[in-house]
């Protein structure tokens, strides 16, 4: 090709200069306003980080902070019926003085964004009397938060015609002094894009929004169906795998054992990785994120039982535990703790068990591998049943059984026909008389979710161990169960 004419050269030079002078600042501004990542923290402790620290989900799943703030104020009518206002309506533990509820992270990726971390399901609260600030325990099973309601709220907001820049900006401007540029960004890019993203993810949850489909309610989700429909493109089926959130303290006890209620994963680290991926943590950093989460969970101990324990009675309970419970739940050598007990033996509701298949496990593993994440894979265990969990801090893990279908320990030691068919879960007032939460008072009814054990997946049958003991022995056994640890201060 012949050389360019001097005229052309001049134009090219001008174009290049314009590109440099105009293009680079624009590109830099765009990067700064939309992609620049600012580390959250520093954290005063691993526990603080567990409660509020990013696990790397903000870039993909982060809601713009000001939209997140504005939503409950613009759409109070879409909050759950038992909600009390604002983000607190979802019942997720929220420490006084803190900007975010537990499990909600705030991190700047271009602009401040809000995502979730493990603590949204794995922090719990309890009270010893109604007129008391709840005590919050990181690593405990969240029994008050309604995660399904959060998911639905976000998509319902996005579907609502009020989700537009005029209305949201009017609310945001009451509270934020956004710069002219940020206002433009919110109005013309961030708000419409957020709406689009929220609407786009609705089909992913279509399976749980089927009419008359069993609700999760407070403190539960459908973990394997969530995994199945998120990580595999398998067709929607009719299984219902509602399950109680587990505690993740003393995670060291689970090393080398089967995890998830039916023992689908043989490694604590893998469970953390898969759960984090479910929260849309960035695959390239998820393994390192999982490491600090695991460190916290291994170190964390449940709190001591907060009411007096009758030591003499508990001592009487110990031999009963050894006789009736230890072979499955004991932490000593030779027990079946962390092993899968066949469904034919434990006889609890089998719905959770059948949500997961070998095919789903294979595809999920391929999906994770494609993301470039190396981990011990998820499986469909050969033995079909529920794994025998360690009972550390069991007093704070009510309601009981994998599906949270038995309100308290007292009822768990009763035969099926004497267990409550209906109760309300989600109120954090502890009831030492039954060893579990208050599930019957008017306040429990107002704040809680009505568990109907006749609904699919909510069956309260099975695990009849100890149910034929004389009442005095049951009392002694329960007294001993209150002491099970290791608890705070113990190794």
């Amino acid at each position, binding site marked *: 090709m012949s050389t360019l004419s001097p005229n052309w050269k001049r134009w090219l030079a001008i174009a290049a200069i314009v590109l440099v002078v105009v293009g680079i600042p624009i590109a830099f501004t765009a990067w700064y306003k939309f992609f620049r990542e600012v580390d959250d923290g520093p954290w005063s402790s691993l526990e603080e980080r567990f409660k509020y620290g990013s696990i790397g989900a903000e870039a993909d799943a982060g809601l713009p902070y000001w939209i997140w703030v504005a939503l409950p104020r613009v759409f109070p009518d879409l909050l759950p019926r038992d909600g009390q*206002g604002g983000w607190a309506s979802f019942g997720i533990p929220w*420490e*006084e003085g803190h900007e975010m509820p537990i499990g909600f992270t705030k991190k700047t990726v271009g602009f401040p964004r809000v995502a979730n971390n493990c603590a949204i399901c794995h922090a719990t609260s309890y009270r010893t009397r109604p007129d008391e600030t709840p005590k919050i325990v990181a690593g405990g099973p969240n029994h008050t938060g309604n995660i399904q309601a959060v998911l639905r709220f976000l998509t319902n907001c996005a579907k609502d015609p009020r989700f537009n820049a005029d209305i949201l900006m009017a609310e945001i401007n009451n509270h934020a002094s956004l710069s002219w540029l940020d206002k433009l960004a919110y109005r013309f890019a961030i708000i419409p894009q957020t709406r689009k993203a929220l609407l786009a993810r609705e089909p992913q949850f279509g399976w749980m929004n089927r009419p008359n489909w069993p609700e999760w309610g407070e403190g539960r989700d459908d973990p394997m169906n969530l995994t199945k429909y998120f990580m595999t493109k398998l067709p929607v089926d009719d299984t219902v795998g509602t399950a109680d959130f587990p505690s993740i303290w003393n995670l060291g006890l689970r090393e080398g054992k089967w995890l998830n209620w039916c023992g689908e994963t043989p490694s604590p680290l893998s469970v953390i990785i898969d759960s984090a991926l479910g929260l849309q943590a960035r695959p390239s950093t998820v393994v390192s994120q999982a490491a600090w989460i695991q460190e916290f969970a291994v170190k964390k101990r449940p709190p001591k039982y907060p009411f007096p324990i009758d030591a003499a009675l508990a001592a009487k309970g110990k031999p009963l535990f050894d006789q009736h419970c230890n072979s499955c739940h004991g932490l000593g050598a030779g027990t079946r703790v962390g092993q899968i007990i066949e469904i034919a033996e434990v006889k609890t509701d089998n719905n959770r068990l059948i949500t997961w298949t070998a095919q789903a496990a294979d595809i999920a593993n391929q999906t994770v591998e494609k993301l470039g994440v190396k981990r011990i894979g998820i499986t469909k265990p050969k033995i079909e049943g529920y794994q025998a969990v360690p009972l550390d801090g069991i007093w704070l893990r009510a309601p009981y059984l994998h599906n949270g279908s038995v309100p308290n320990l007292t009822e768990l030691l009763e035969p099926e026909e004497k267990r409550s068919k209906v109760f309300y879960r989600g109120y954090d007032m502890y009831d030492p008389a039954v060893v579990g939460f208050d599930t019957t008072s008017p306040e429990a009814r107002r704040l809680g979710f009505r568990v109907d054990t006749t609904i699919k997946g909510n069956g309260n049958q099975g695990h009849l161990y100890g149910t034929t003991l004389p009442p005095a022995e049951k009392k002694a056994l329960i007294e001993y169960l209150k002491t099970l640890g290791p608890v705070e201060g113990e190794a």
Partner: protein
Amino acid sequence: MTVLREGWLKVALLLLLAAGLLIGLYLVSRLTSNSPVVYTDPKEHFKYGSTGGEILNGIPYTIWKTLPVIFQLPGGDYRSFGFLYESGRDLPVGVSKRRYRGMDLVSLNCAICHVGSYRSNPAEAPHYVLGMPSNTVDLRAYYEFLFNAAANEKFTAGRILGQAEQMGIHEDFLNRQILRYYAVSLTRTSLLNFASRLNFMLTNPAFGPGRIDTFGPAKALLNFATDSRMPDTEKIGTTDLPSIWYQRQREGLHLHWDGNNDKVQERNRSAAFGTGAFPPTLDRPNMKRVEDFLLDAAPDPYPYPIDKTRAERGKQIYGQLCANCHGPDGKNFGPHQGALGEVTPIERIATDRFRLDSYTAALAVDQNQLYAETSDPNERFSHFRKTFGYANLPLDGIWLRGPYLHNGSVPTLRDLLEPSANRPKLFYRGDDTFDPVRVGFLSTPERNGRKFFAFDTSVRGNGNKGHEGKTYGTDLPPADKDALVEFLKTF
């Protein structure tokens, strides 16, 4: 000829350009104007200075001035709501003015609730005391008037501008056009919108003068769902307005009637929401001037004779019964003095619990997002707590703070020293004539055609029980009670 013409054309064009530029500059400077009326004297600033509330929530001066005439309020101004007018002043105490975008806007300020009035007899001119709880202003009636006006067909630009002309209120051409085509309808919409958010409060029992629902507006601001989700027990939070003297010594005490915040600045800014000042618009330097003034603002000394011997006797009793909770005297108080500034559990104090229950844990945590993301990270609210009782307050200037208890349900100090069965079941609020015998304000049904507010203690939220029994002095012999009241006059 052509040369000449071209020359003229150039000159004309240049002139046009210059004129355009000047007009443009004028418009820019006019439409970016934001200047409050400045008062150099701190007391005048407290009474009339702006907190910034006009910017987002102000009402155009012209509209505000004409409404009482158009809707025929007595006197054609706001005195029938108990607003205090000083001679020679256009605006009443507690109403501020700011020129914003070229138009004068008015809003309320701290003084609307925190300037009170007293006189020795009805014929005497009233004394206005800065920092004293307003005993005359009926803020709810004021807002109801504005809301009703906004909903009325007479709320039109034509009527308002016409009335303004008759009253000699001069707006220039540009502002008249803005009012006609924009500002009147915007004000109307804003008032109706505000009314809908406050709706739950407007259906509560009447407040009467000198009372307000402190956290109802906060719920409205955060747009808490106020339908069936809000239990009836949480809807009523009517309280007596508090005094705001000696703030320096209040730092660290549990402030607000239920002691839900122990940081003065946060408490102030929370209250400033009531003046319309939001995080983006709070006039921080102006607010700081108010706060500085309040640090050492003091009540007026008791203006009538005090029986020294009797007061001395009362001092002994006070030391035994009252000092632990209320501090040694009316001047020397602060945190860590006995139980001063601490919260007495509701079971012990046993006063009406509506106000306590109206402040919920959900509201406390939701307030943590107020003042988030401002230029100063320390501004974010982080000190609100759900409490379970009422706070022990210092008694500075207690003679000016009647009626007593958090809901203003006991008319005088002497009545407060009676068991609740002997306290008046019905009395009248709003008369500022002082009663030096029982210490409080006269209970007057009607004077010169002006009806005062009948306070019925059997109405929900108005209960006059509690703060009684041996430890509260209600069992003392009458002479001792009189002595105690005599001593309290010295505060």
